[in-house]
């Protein structure tokens, strides 16, 4: 049994590691008002560079650290120069989406280069522990603390005494005014990305040594933890990020001490949600906070959507409806069933992200709620599957909206962070609430789809079922968008302050959007559960949320037909071109990057 002092030491050490990530995020947010979702990928790259250095090149520790910092910094510079600088004059959401795409690409490249299997990263330090009070501390703990403190000092000196550091501070307070003093903002961005990447890379390497294991799943976790720490400390606040990180480390460590390891992340995300709800500017925000800007210019502006004549749509529906009667392979139907399921999720997200402007990164949670509700009701209460799926949709609508409601008072990027955290919380609750969800074992033996007592076993019947449900949901949503309600949604997206001034209750309309979207996503999850017959807490993950977002952007934000076209394209094209599964995520990331850069309005145009 470890002592409390041990948990405190552990919390502070882990906090130090988070700080290295969070400080970089804070620097970048300060200068560009951007949450860099690729920070975790750089951390991942750092860990693998460290592995190459230690295991293959046998470099001594100081050299390893320098090597990791330099290579990671280079990656950061490349991201800034080629991924983000071209987006300087585009809408505010564009760079955020680009960093998500970049993180997909980097993670997949690392995975393809080094294989997804975990690797051991030895620390090169003697394995001894010193007695300190009632706890122990090892050389690696001291190294991590040393690197953390040294970095903080160097950063302080840089910001306070160097010319470039002054430029960074000035630019983060008023970019335009800094330019008018002769500050080259591009150089500032470069500096900030380079520093953030170097710190992030070293952090990844240290974590790898700490747990003596690295794998590609580290990336998303690091981004999430860094973002939590940064937001807790106040976005853009560098000292705040350090304190937020230490706090996060301690909260997690004590949480683990009391409840067990599987609760570690739950505490992290709960801390985030609590801070976002109670003090959205962070624990250390001064009374004077950034004035709320209207959301004008945040979102991809409505373009002239491609008008598809009614007869063409009807014809397309008819063709897809009779498809199973034609001599098509089982494989084609299977692929399209997946596309229809993704299409339902995309309908939900295009309403929430496109029409009312809440860019949700946790949409997979709605799938999970629907899937678990439907599976459990049909298994334990023997509810007919059709009803169970509807119940899953309703549960997703209700529970999803309630869970996401704390984010209603947030704006812009904060909504994305909050929904991401809420999505993670749902998955962690599923993992830990064993009496209901069966925890890590998952639910197996879920009854197959059935309708009015007839089991839908043949691919054609499943195809028709999924297609019909999706078409009905799409028609409902199209009707909704052309109504007064749809206009109110768009008004809130375009300028929430003006919308409020006209008497629109933001909470009510956001709830309505999430209720409708939650239902569509929940139904999709429910159908998936009965189709797969086995689900667990990882079936519906953040990767799916991001995939849905890519679909929605590909189709055109807010565009109902676009959501479906996007789903068919992203599910279908890799099949058509027989792209191996491990390259698919890479392709999705590249698609997202290219879209944001060259066709932000998507294929069919935003509405």
């Amino acid at each position, binding site marked *: 049994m470890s002592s409390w002092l041990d948990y405190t030491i552990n919390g502070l050490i882990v906090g130090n590691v988070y700080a290295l990530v969070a400080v970089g995020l804070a620097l970048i947010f300060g200068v560009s008002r951007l949450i860099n979702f690729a920070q975790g990928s750089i951390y991942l790259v750092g860990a693998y560079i460290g592995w190459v250095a230690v295991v293959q090149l046998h470099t001594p520790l100081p050299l390893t650290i320098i090597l990791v910092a330099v290579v990671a910094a280079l990656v950061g510079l490349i991201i800034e120069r080629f991924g983000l600088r071209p987006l300087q004059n585009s809408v505010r959401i564009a760079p955020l989406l680009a960093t998500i795409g970049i993180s997909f690409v980097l993670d997949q490249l690392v995975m393809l280069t080094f294989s997804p299997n975990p690797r051991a990263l030895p620390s090169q330090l003697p394995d001894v522990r010193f007695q300190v009070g009632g706890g122990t501390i090892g050389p690696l703990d001291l190294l991590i603390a040393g690197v953390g403190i040294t970095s903080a000092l160097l950063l302080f000196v840089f910001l306070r005494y160097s*010319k470039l550091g002054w430029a960074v*501070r*000035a630019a983060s307070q*008023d970019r*335009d005014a*800094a330019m*008018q*003093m002769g500050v080259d903002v591009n150089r500032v961005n470069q500096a900030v990305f380079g520093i953030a990447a170097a710190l992030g890379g070293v952090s990844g390497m240290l974590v790898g040594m700490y747990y003596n294991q690295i794998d590609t799943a580290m990336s998303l976790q690091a981004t999430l933890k860094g973002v939590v720490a940064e937001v807790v400390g106040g976005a853009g606040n560098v000292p705040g990020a350090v304190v937020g990180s230490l706090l996060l480390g301690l909260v997690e460590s004590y949480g683990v001490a009391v409840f067990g390891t599987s609760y570690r992340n739950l505490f992290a995300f709960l801390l985030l949600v609590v801070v976002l709800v109670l003090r959205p500017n962070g624990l250390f925000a001064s009374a004077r906070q950034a004035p709320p800007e209207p959301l004008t210019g945040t979102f991809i502006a409505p373009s002239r959507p491609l008008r598809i004549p009614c007869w063409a749509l009807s014809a397309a529906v008819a063709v897809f409806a009779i498809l199973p009667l034609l001599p098509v392979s089982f494989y084609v139907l299977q692929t399209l069933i997946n596309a229809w399921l993704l299409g339902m999720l995309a309908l939900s997200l295009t309403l929430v992200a496109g029409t009312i402007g809440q860019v949700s990164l946790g949409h997979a949670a709605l799938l999970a709620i629907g899937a678990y509700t439907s599976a459990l009701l049909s298994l334990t209460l023997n509810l007919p599957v059709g009803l169970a799926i509807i119940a899953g949709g309703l549960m997703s609508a209700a529970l999803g909206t309630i869970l996401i409601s704390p984010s209603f008072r947030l704006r812009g990027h904060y909504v994305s962070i909050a929904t991401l955290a809420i999505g993670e919380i749902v998955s962690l609750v599923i993992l830990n609430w064993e009496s209901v969800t069966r925890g890590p074992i998952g639910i197996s033996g879920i009854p197959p789809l059935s309708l009015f007592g007839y089991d839908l076993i043949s691919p054609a019947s499943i195809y028709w079922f999924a297609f019909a449900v999706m078409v009905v949901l799409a028609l409902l949503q199209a009707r909704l968008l052309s109504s007064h309600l749809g206009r109110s949604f768009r008004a809130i997206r375009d300028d929430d302050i003006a919308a409020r001034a006209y008497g629109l209750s933001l909470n009510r309309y956001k709830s309505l959007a999430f209720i409708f979207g939650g239902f569509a996503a929940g139904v999709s999850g429910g159908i998936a559960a009965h189709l797969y017959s086995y689900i667990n807490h990882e079936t519906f993950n953040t990767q799916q949320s991001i995939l849905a977002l890519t679909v929605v952007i590909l189709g055109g934000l807010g565009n109902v037909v676009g959501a479906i076209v996007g789903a068919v394209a992203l599910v279908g094209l890799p099949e058509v071109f027989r792209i191996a599964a491990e390259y698919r995520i890479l392709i999705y990331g590249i698609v997202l990057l290219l879209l944001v850069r060259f066709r932000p309005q998507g294929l069919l145009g935003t509405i």
Partner: protein
Amino acid sequence: MSTGAPEPLLALSNVNTFYGQAQVHFDLSITVGRGHIVCLLGGNASGKSTTMKIILGLVKPRSGEVMFDGASVIGLTTPQIVRRGIASVPEARRLFADMSVRENILMGAFVRNDREAIAQDLDKMLTLFPKLGQRLSQRAGSLSGGEQQMVAMARALMSRPRLIVMDEPTMGLSPLYVDRVLELIRAINAEGVSVFMVEQNASLALEIAHEAYVLQTGKIVLSGPARTLKEDPRVRDAYLGGSEAA
């Protein structure tokens, strides 16, 4: 002053600017002579602030030329233009609120590398703006509007500019500070720095300016020596009616 027809320090000629479809400037031509104070008058949405942004390279005109000291600045970035010798006192001052007053003033010298001369200039600023002496280590955001205006002006001077462009330097200031700011603009000008200022308060601006332009919905409708404009009935009616009574 050179002999003959002196080349102006700043010359905008036939500038046309657009925001999307909307045209902001129609064949705008403005010159600022060396050593002069020139003011641009105009109501809301007349394109005044956009004129400032054109000079500083923050907005690119669709057509036309901007010459500073005999060379085109079209296509240069804002930092490059600042290095050529233009400093700005932006609208609403735009100080670096979380940096100290000293740091704010020194930020003005960002384009310079001569440490000792910078230190001397800082001392000079403190004689020009004696009030700032006690405030040096204070957060700039905690100063009053008038004090912030002083800091913004000191910051602009620190780059040793040949031209200072000021966007509504008296906006939101108490009458006491308005007079002080005008005095200071004169003092700065007396040291050889040309000034181009945008103002809504026409009577004050014409008080200190050598030349003035009147901008209306993107077109220059009147221009000439400030003294003449002050007497012009059209200017009196449009801009001075209310303010003279005050």
